[in-house]
């Protein structure tokens, strides 16, 4: 026989229960012959993050076929001399301690007809999963872990994570759900940092457009189809921003590119896209490096709003509350914190800089300058954040001037939203019956709408709804909508504003 019989049979799979140990490398063998650091930073980071999520138990699937990894094998690793397996292991994390006997008890309860009870028990404590790939030095595959709670323990800030989504998970016959955004470590064979950042961003948006999520291998192929910055596409030696745009187009989405200016301009851009659920790819460069690095924005840490950097205006922006971003950094891990600060360059320019940290720790991993923001958006969204904000800034200043005596703190927030979701939310806006009918039944809305939200400390005052199938927001206003905190005076002004903007008024 040229090969052993077991090589061509279905191998045995098992589900193994482990007590949680933050050193996840104990679950996998150190790669034979590997010199240098072990375990990899990403594995340490995930273990550290789970410890802070109070993980108590790990359920390990010893054989798991991961769609992303098997595509990488088909494209690249299957042609290597080393015999790479086509399967991975998968770890599931739970916040309660349980034994094998208790796990078996859940199976028994399900067998006796109460599957929902077993699933509800597991769901309550489910923290997410991590695929372990059999790649020496690059074990962290598709990983979806729930982020830290929205409210900070000391109440000083809020963690906003609009770019997470629900993932359905099947384990041992049970179906569970975790809300997060997929992360993975770059393997430098099929995917570099840019590939994994685009992959995470696509994970966020593709399901909203009923599209299949492209694998890292497919993204690398799309990026290299028409343009190569270096000699070969595989092994991946990194991507240029133009290639990232090609990859985004190749997977059926549209790339929006914004060149970084300074925190005053960049923060509102980031807030607009992140609040819209469009995860941005951030191109950054460390002070000392020539080449850059790509990370994916998932959310932000929000404090109280601050006065506008331009003291002449009569409003401020929701984005002034952002002090840090939560990013997927494939050199570090998911939801890594990046403090955003202004950095004065030698020529006097003020640039947006990031200080990237381990979660809840003071250790700084890297300091870098933001170069550009690349956002995969739905094809039908033609309006950029800049053009939506052009009208947003005007309307916010209008409100600041008009309501100067009534409200001290007029705040502008712009975002994109699905019109059907907005219409459902609008039932809670305390609109009159005529206002509801006007907005829900007599106004045609684009699939995605641009929203200019004006609010104060008392609550939301009014929204401006913009048609995003247009390239300019002026003149493309569809509706001016009064909100919960609007009094009679505000409603009268909104009505007049609607006439000036050529839109309907829903009051």
């Amino acid at each position, binding site marked *: 026989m040229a090969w052993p019989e077991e090589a061509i049979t279905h191998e045995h799979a098992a589900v193994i229960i482990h007590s949680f140990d933050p050193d996840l490398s104990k679950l996998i063998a150190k790669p034979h012959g590997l010199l240098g650091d072990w375990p990899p930073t990403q594995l340490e980071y995930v273990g550290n993050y789970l410890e802070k999520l109070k993980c108590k138990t790990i359920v390990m699937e010893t054989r798991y076929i991961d769609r992303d990894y098997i595509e990488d094998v088909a494209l690249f690793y299957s042609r290597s001399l080393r015999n790479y397996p086509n399967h991975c292991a998968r770890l599931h994390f739970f916040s309660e301690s349980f034994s094998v006997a208790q796990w078996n008890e859940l199976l028994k309860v399900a067998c006796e007809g109460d599957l929902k009870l077993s699933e509800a028990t597991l769901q309550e404590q489910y923290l997410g999963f991590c695929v372990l790939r059999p790649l020496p030095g690059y074990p962290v595959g598709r990983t979806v872990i729930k982020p830290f709670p929205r409210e900070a323990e000391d109440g000083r800030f809020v963690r906003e994570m609009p770019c997470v989504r629900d993932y359905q998970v099947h384990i041992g016959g049970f179906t569970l759900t975790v809300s997060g955004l997929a992360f993975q470590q770059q393997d430098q064979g099929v995917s*570099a940092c840019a590939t994994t950042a685009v992959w995470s961003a696509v994970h966020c948006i593709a399901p909203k457009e009923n599209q299949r999520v492209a694998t890292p291998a497919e993204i690398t192929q799309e990026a290299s189809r028409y343009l190569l910055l270096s000699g070969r596409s595989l092994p991946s030696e990194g991507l240029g921003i133009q290639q*990232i745009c090609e990859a985004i187009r190749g997977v059926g989405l549209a790339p929006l590119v*914004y*060149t970084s200016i300074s925190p005053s301009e960049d923060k509102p851009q980031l807030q607009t896209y992140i609040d819209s659920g469009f995860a941005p790819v951030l191109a950054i460069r460390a002070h000392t490096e020539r080449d850059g690095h790509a990370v994916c924005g998932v959310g932000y840490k929000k404090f109280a709003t601050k006065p506008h950097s331009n003291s*002449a205006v009569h409003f401020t922006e929701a984005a002034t509350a952002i002090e840090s971003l939560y990013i997927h950094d494939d050199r570090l891990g998911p939801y890594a914190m990046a403090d955003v600060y202004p950095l004065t360059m030698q020529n006097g320019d003020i640039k947006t800089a990031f200080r990237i940290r381990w979660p809840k720790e003071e250790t700084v991993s890297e300091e870098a300058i933001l170069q550009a923001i690349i956002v995969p958006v739905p094809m039908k969204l033609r309006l950029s954040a800049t053009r939506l904000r052009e009208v947003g800034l*005007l309307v916010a200043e209008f409100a600041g001037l008009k309501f100067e005596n009534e409200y001290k703190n007029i705040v502008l927030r712009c975002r994109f939203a699905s019109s059907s979701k907005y219409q459902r939310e609008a039932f809670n806006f305390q609109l009159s019956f005529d206002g509801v009918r006007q907005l829900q039944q007599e106004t045609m809305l684009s699939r995605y709408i641009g929203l200019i939200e004006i609010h104060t400390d008392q609550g939301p005052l009014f929204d401006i709804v913009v048609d995003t199938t247009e390239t300019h927001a*002026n*003149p493309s206003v569809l509706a001016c909508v009064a909100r919960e905190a609007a009094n009679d005076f505000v409603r009268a002004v909104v009505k007049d504003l609607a006439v*000036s903007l*050529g839109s309907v008024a829903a009051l």
Partner: protein
Amino acid sequence: MTNKKPVSARSFSDTKAVAKSSSSSGTAKESVAETLERARQNVKSIVKKEKQGEVISSEVMAFRLK
């Protein structure tokens, strides 16, 4: 037959004209138009600076990310 633009096609530069051409509650609308124009002037520099970000140079497009 008048040559009036449809309402939805009006831009902000037309807001004064809208206010003047409107017959009902003219004073209030004139005030809205004037405030809109003042607001437009106040945010002009912010809008101009933000728009610079939409200019994508060839250096930015070729920036390599590893």
